[in-house]
């Protein structure tokens, strides 16, 4: 017998006796709750786009992520150039995409494109990583990326400044909506990495004091275009 068979055998034997259902002594057996329950009990987010936008903005601020809502492509270009100069960027990393291509053109500095293959040491030296994303989540202030939408696994986490380019239509309401979205978009063939990024990297391991930029990006900037 393989170890697998032995273990599964032990499990089946163990489960021959039923364990008490949690929390409800008077109810026998209930179907597992669905995400509709999650939606009703998780923190409140309004129905309208304006409310969701306001929620995202507030959450991003609480997380110390920078959030920009440029009115036009020109405004976006100017803001990005401002960030480039403030950060003294010499070289950045990005991936091919409609928004990222525009961004790269705008700041006009040397860049690695991860989807053309990259060297890790070179990526590590880049001042910033600019990526697109799959969605923004209003309820939590999160950015949803996958390795397909954001230039691989490392780009959104290795360079010390992560810049995210999102489109208006990508703002989702809450976590249940995010998982519904993932199922619709990728259900047949999920990317091998899906990540919810909620603020710049942080740690509280030293005396529970918050420090940003533990290993991942010290700065997170989100543009909603």
């Amino acid at each position, binding site marked *: 017998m393989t170890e697998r068979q032995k273990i599964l055998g032990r499990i089946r034997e163990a489960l021959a006796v039923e364990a008490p259902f949690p929390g409800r002594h008077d109810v026998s057996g209930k179907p597992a709750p669905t995400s509709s329950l999650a939606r009703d009990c998780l923190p409140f987010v309004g129905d309208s786009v304006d409310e969701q936008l306001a929620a995202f903005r507030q959450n991003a601020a609480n997380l110390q992520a920078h959030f920009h809502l440029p009115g036009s492509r020109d405004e976006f270009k100017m803001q990005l150039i401002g960030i480039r100069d403030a950060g003294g960027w010499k070289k950045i990393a990005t991936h091919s995409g409609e928004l990222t291509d525009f961004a790269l053109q705008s700041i006009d500095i040397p860049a690695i494109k991860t989807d053309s293959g990259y060297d890790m040491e070179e990526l590590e030296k880049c001042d910033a990583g600019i990526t697109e994303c799959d969605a923004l989540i209003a309820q939590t202030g999160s950015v949803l990326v996958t390795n397909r939408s954001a230039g691989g696994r490392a780009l959104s986490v290795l360079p010390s400044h992560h810049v995210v380019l999102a489109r208006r239509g990508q703002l989702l309401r809450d976590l249940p909506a995010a998982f519904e979205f993932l199922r619709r978009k990728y259900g047949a063939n*999920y990317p091998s*990495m899906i990540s919810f990024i909620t603020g*710049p990297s942080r740690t*509280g391991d030293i005396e529970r004091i918050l420090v940003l930029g533990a290993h*991942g990006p010290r700065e997170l900037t989100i543009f909603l275009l």
Partner: protein
Amino acid sequence: MSSPVQQFKQAANVVAHDLQHRATIQTALEKYTVIRDQTRGAFRDYAAVRQAAAEIKWEAVNHLDKYLELFVSKLEARGAKVHWAGTGEQACEIILGVVREKKARSIIKSKTMTSEEIHLNEALELEGYEVVESDLGEFIVQLKKETPYHIVFPAMHLTRGEIKDLFNRKLAANTSDNPGELTMVARRVLRKKYINADIGLTGANFAIAETGMISITENEGNARLTAALPKTMITLLGLEKILPRLEDLALFLPMLATSGTGQPLTCYNTMYGGPRQPGEFDGPEELHVVLLDGRRTELLANAEQRDSLHCIRCGACLNVCPIFRNIGGHTYGTTYSGPIGSVITPHLRGLQGWKHLSVSSSLCGACTETCPVKIDLAHHLLQNRRDATAQKPARLWKLGFKFFAFIINRPAIYKLLAPLGRVGQKLHSPLKSTRLDPVYAWTKTREMPQIAPQTFREFWTNRK
């Protein structure tokens, strides 16, 4: 070589009197409690979420075979290699096998308590492999050659001054004690390690059966890097980590964050569904997933305590436990401390040897109250006590309780206790708090209460 219970009592004695430790832990946990309460308050119905989470875990654990098989088939379909380990030793052997095969020179590790449980680092280091902990707290305790103090906050017991001294001594860092600066020291050291590591070793917070994904929750980004850069990824997890559906994470990610650190959501929540897939240009070429039993199936067979396998390792029960706060994580002398550790360790490591963890509790119930998946922790401690004495009664105690029952059931004898007690008090007085004091266990640190001049029964009798 003293037994676990002797070591426990010795260590508890030292730490419980360490006022510096008491203050450090109190401060850390006060901060946690404040944010946690705020975050809980933002849920529209926190109680309902707790019940839902408990039910989902019940579903997963009580159909574990079905969900495990689904999980494995999905993972294998995407090119991951799944290994089943009956024991910790087997898990170590499997991982060593991969490491040897890859001729690895350096291994970078993100946080996994399961690896502590099987003493993986020791096994790897014995064979000459360098294992670097990338989580800041783990990095610190690894340098200090200590085990993690807390399952979520490994270095909770250390002050910034101690960490500064450690870094200056071991890393020639020349740093101040500013937490930001200290963190940057670790960041600099570890950046190189990620890039040069051949193998990335991770744990998993959840295993999603429906889609064959491993879910990892972290704040620092070290697990993201561990799962992105090295050519080979190995993930070790206990087989109870299963969740049925991907969408269950919509509930569990916030619950884990709220209970674990008080945050609404942890910084990086990432689902990995295999090694680098066709068309993908980075990520590990190989993913090995090691499923560990390690006597979890024994706990599974205990229907009364099966819910302890619902544990999501959030650490909330540790945070609220007054015993944990006063004796500290290291006193437990085992991987899982706090209430959950006190419940499961007798099952994972032997009832008679480790029952003292279930006995050393005032049964206040704060753990049961806080557990996000409603594990009946305090009552399990009682059940462990019952099972331990049934298996191997301590004759003196058993006799003592029989004798007590004899007296207490006989009003005529009981009536004598008050007058006898008053005499006993007078005789006791000169012995009090000295080594000859028969109740020294009480009087060493507490004053004795006195028998009342008139007991309630005496009052009642007089009144009639």
